Each structure stands twice: as C-alpha cells, then as structure tokens.
C-alpha cells in the first residue's frame, strides 16, 4: 500500500502547468486590479461572471462528488480525487467573494435605494438590502464549506484505512447534502445573478445555474481525465468505458441546461408580462442576440449532436476537445447572463472581460492542481476500486448493493 500511494501521485507535468497557470493568472489579476482603480464598475462586472464560473467549477464538483457516492458507478471512483481537489478550492473562493461584497453598491442597483426609487423600481426591500445580502452570502459559504469539509475529511479517513464504513457515512451525507446544495445554490443564484435586475424573476433560474455548474464540473473532469490518461501513473487507469460514462453524464447536463433555458424562454416569451420580459428584451432585440444564437448552436446543438455518437464518447481526445468547447461556452453563458444588464444598448466586450476570466481561471487552476497533487489520485482503499479498474465491460447490476 505504501508504494501504491506513491505510485498514484500527479505527474511532474502537473507542476509545470500549475506554475504557468499561476503566472498567467497573477499577471491577469494584477492588470485588472490596476484597471479597477480607474474603472471599478467595469472591473466588478467582469469579475462577477468570471468568479461565478470558477465557483461553479468547485460547487459543481462537490455536487457530482455527492452524486457519484449515491449512484456508485465506476466512473465516479476514478475521478473522485479530481472532484475532491476542485471542491477543496472552496475556501479560496470564499475569499474571492470579498471584492463582490466590497462592490455591492456598484454592482446592484437595489443596493443604491435612492437611485432605485428615482427609477421607480419595485422590488422587495426586505430581502434585497446590503446587510441581509452579506448575511446570506456568509450562510451559503458556511454551509458549502461544512459539507466540503465533511466529504473531504471522511474520504481521507478512508484512505488511512483505520476503520471501515466511511463509504456508508459518505453516502448518508450525500443525500441530504445534495438537497442542501440545491437550495443554497438556488438562493445564491437569485442573490448574485438574478438580482442584477431586481424586478425580474424566474422560477427556473436557480435550476439553470445548478445545471450549468454540473456541466462545467463534468467538462472539467473530462478534460483533466483525458490529460492525465496520457501520462503515467494514470495512463492505464482510464479506459474507453469510463470516458463513455463521462460522455453520458455530460450529455445529460447539456440536455438539462438546454431544457431549463428553453423552458424559461418559452414561459417568459409567451407570457410577455412587463415584469418578466425585460430580461430578454436586450438579449433578443439587440446585437446580444448573436451570443444567444451562439449559445443555442455551441452550448447545446453541437455538443448534443456529437455526444450522441458512441465512438466519440469513447475517444478521450475528441471528448476532451468537446469538453473544452463546453467550458468556453459556460463562460460565455455567464457573460450573457451578467453583461447585458449593464450594456443594454448591444453587444460589447471590454478588455476587462477576457483578462479577468484569464486571471481568475489561471489562479483557480493553479490552486486546483496544487490540491490535486496533495493526495494520491485514486481512492486506494475504496472497496469498489478493483471493479472500477477492471478491464471488462460487465454490466454492473449484480455487483452492487
């Protein structure tokens, strides 16, 4: 076992990627930090969606981690450590929320009551006000960190092998954990994204963000698995059938995202009510519509059509390329949720937007790889590991209980 622990550490190339990501990320963040002195509003808009993307990777990974404990498939065992590493970036992301708290009055019109009253905005002041906003954010992070800490702690205990039964505990936590995740992420999505337009509301919005987070995390896992599978020690671990399963999971979330997005559009478009339609007016009647068309084509159409193919799902390289595309589209989707609220005239991209994304993602990637390196990349004492690594294509019906 001791040797095995040392065998499954991350390859040396990971450290190189980590260093480069950190350098690029820090340079990006320094650039936008300097820019923020002159144009704080622009910085905050760009930071909001870049941050939401990184947060989605971590939270989505936590959700899929709980999901794989509950469903116990082979695909979950082989990426469990990667999911955990992404989840362990949550404390850093909690710190990353501070700029949004600092700029809450700049970002959200409801936080400037005089201006909101002058514009005649009608919203629930009892809910949308700065102290309560901050209090809720603290609750969300406290809940997420508590779940993440438990999941990580018990998994580590399992690795030590001091006692059995950790898997059972992890499963028992995952059920209620997913419920709590769903509720908190929904309210966080209302607070941080939906309230950019305080009059607008959509009951589907929370679920839309959940589907997006799960999709981001799945795509990241596919990308990481494909890269790891090209090097020792993980070269022999990932098999076509694992990628086949990853592809199916990804297809599920692509469809879920598209279904939620379309339902929201159809209901609001058909209702055409004055409180609801302002969300879609700039997004459908100005040049922002081209981003919408791109989302339909590249966030749904192309991935959906390609993921139907069994061969593509089983080829690590093509699946990873598709996952990369979906990750880019996730950023663009969040950009499309945030930016039109501030730039209602039409599509415009500021240099802050890409640079902030690169900065945030670079630093996040470095933190993620650092966490990934800190543990063996397989749960070596998991009772299902042998099944997960076996070469056959057996049906897994008989094996579990």
């Amino acid at each position, binding site marked *: 076992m001791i040797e095995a622990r040392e065998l499954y550490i991350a390859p040396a190339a990971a450290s190189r990627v980590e260093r480069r990501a950190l350098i690029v990320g820090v340079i990006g963040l320094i650039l936008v930090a300097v820019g923020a002195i002159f144009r704080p509003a622009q910085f905050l808009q760009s930071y909001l969606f870049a941050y939401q993307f990184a947060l989605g990777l971590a939270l989505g990974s936590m959700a899929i981690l709980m999901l794989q404990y509950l469903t116990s498939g082979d695909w979950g065992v082989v990426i469990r450590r990667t999911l955990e590493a992404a989840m362990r970036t949550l404390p850093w992301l909690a710190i990353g929320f501070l700029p949004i708290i600092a700029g809450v009055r700049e970002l959200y019109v409801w936080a400037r009551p005089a201006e909101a009253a002058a514009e005649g905005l009608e919203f629930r002041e009892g*809910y949308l006000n700065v102290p309560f906003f901050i209090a809720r954010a603290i609750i969300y992070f406290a809940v997420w960190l508590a779940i993440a800490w438990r999941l990580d702690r018990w998994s580590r205990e399992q690795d030590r092998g001091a006692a059995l039964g950790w898997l059972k505990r992890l499963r028992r936590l995952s059920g209620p954990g997913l419920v709590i995740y769903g509720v908190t992420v929904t309210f966080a999505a209302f607070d941080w994204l939906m309230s950019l337009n305080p009059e607008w*509301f959509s009951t589907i919005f929370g679920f839309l963000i959940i589907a997006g987070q799960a999709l981001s995390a799945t795509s990241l896992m596919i990308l990481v698995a494909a890269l790891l599978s090209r090097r020792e020690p993980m070269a022999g671990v990932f098999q076509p059938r694992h990628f086949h399963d990853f592809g199916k999971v990804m297809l599920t979330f692509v469809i879920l995202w598209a279904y939620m997005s379309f339902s929201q559009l159809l209901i609001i478009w058909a209702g055409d009510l004055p409180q609801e339609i302002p969300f879609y007016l700039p997004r459908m009647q100005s040049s922002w519509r081209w981003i919408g068309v791109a989302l339909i084509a590249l966030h749904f159409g192309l991935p959906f059509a390609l993921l139907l193919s069994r061969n593509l799902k089983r080829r690590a390289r093509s699946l990873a390329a598709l996952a990369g595309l979906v990750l880019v589209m996730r950023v663009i989707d969040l950009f499309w949720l945030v930016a039109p609220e501030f730039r209602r005239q039409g599509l415009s991209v500021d240099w802050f937007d890409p640079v902030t994304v690169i900065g945030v993602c670079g630093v996040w990637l470095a933190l993620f790889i650092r966490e990934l390196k800190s543990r063996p990349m397989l749960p070596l004492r998991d009772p299902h590991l042998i099944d997960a690594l076996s070469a056959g294509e057996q049906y897994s019906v008989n094996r579990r209980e």
Partner: protein
Amino acid sequence: MVLTIAIPLRSYYGLEDLVTLRHLDNCGKLMLVTGLIVDYGYMCEIFLSWYSKDEFEWFMTRNRIFGPYWMVFWSVMLCNVVATQFLWSRRIRRSPVALFLLSLVINTGMWVERYMIVVTSLTRDFMPSAWGQYAGTIWDYAVFIGTLGFFVMMMFLFVRLLPAISISEVRTLLPQAEVKEEAEEVVS
C-alpha cells in the same frame, strides 16, 4: 405510478424473485428524488412570488394558500411534500405495503396538483369580471373515471398478452450468462 401497478402485479403473479426488494428500494429512491424536485419547484414558486413584489403573482399565491381552494393547496402539500419525506427511511422503501400506500398518496397528490394549477388559475383571471368558482359536474367525473378505466384496460391487456418482464433481459442476469475468461485460453 409504476409502483402502484408493479407492487400488486408482483404479488399477484408471484414475481417476488424477479422484482426484488432491491428494485423496489431503488424505485423508492427515484420517487424521493423526483418528489424533492417537485418540492423544490413549489419552494421557488412561492418564494419568488413574494420576492417579485408583483401584485398579481403574490395574490395568486395567497389565493392558492388561503383562498376558496385552500384545501386543494394543502392536500398537495400533504401528499407531495410531507408524504414523500417518508421515503428517506430504508425500512419504508423496503416494505411493499408501505410503498404501495405511499404511491397511492403521491398519485392522488399529483392529480390534485393538476387540479390546483388549472382551477385556481382559471377562476382568478387578471380581470375580476372573469372570476368564478368551479366544481366538478357528473360529466367531469365520468370523463375522469372513464380515462382511468381505459388506462387500466389497456394495461391489463398488455400484461395478459405480452411478457410483463422482458425475458431476454432477465436471462442476462443469470450466473450462467457470464462468459468466462477461458474462452480466451481455449483459442490460444
């Protein structure tokens, strides 16, 4: 719904060895998950109608909860929110009788939910002049019972004429169906 049909069928035809407690357990989990998604939907809808500060939205919610059809709303809550929580218990998921009763309750809940959506929405339009009250007439109930009858007839015909359990898929589960690795050795 599947459970409402599957559990009596299982005991009537003696399929206990094919549809095992493990399958029922899994169906129960699925029911719990879908139930929780439904509960999530209720939560979002009620919260956002308050959050929106939109007069019409908020009126509709209050009308559902406290209005003339309050009993419909609270039956939905009882059947779809409270009853589904019993499925967290493994003992209940593994008891066919309890599962059957729960599935009946949840089916009723889903029907009442449709009633709530259609009736409370249509009886309170944006224009008060269009307001009214609705109660089912004999023809409504006749249509309801008739559709149930047709469904049950079709299903019984299906069970009677076609295999209720896929034979070839069940055979795959037999231990003899496993192809042993010796096949490789025989050749080499």
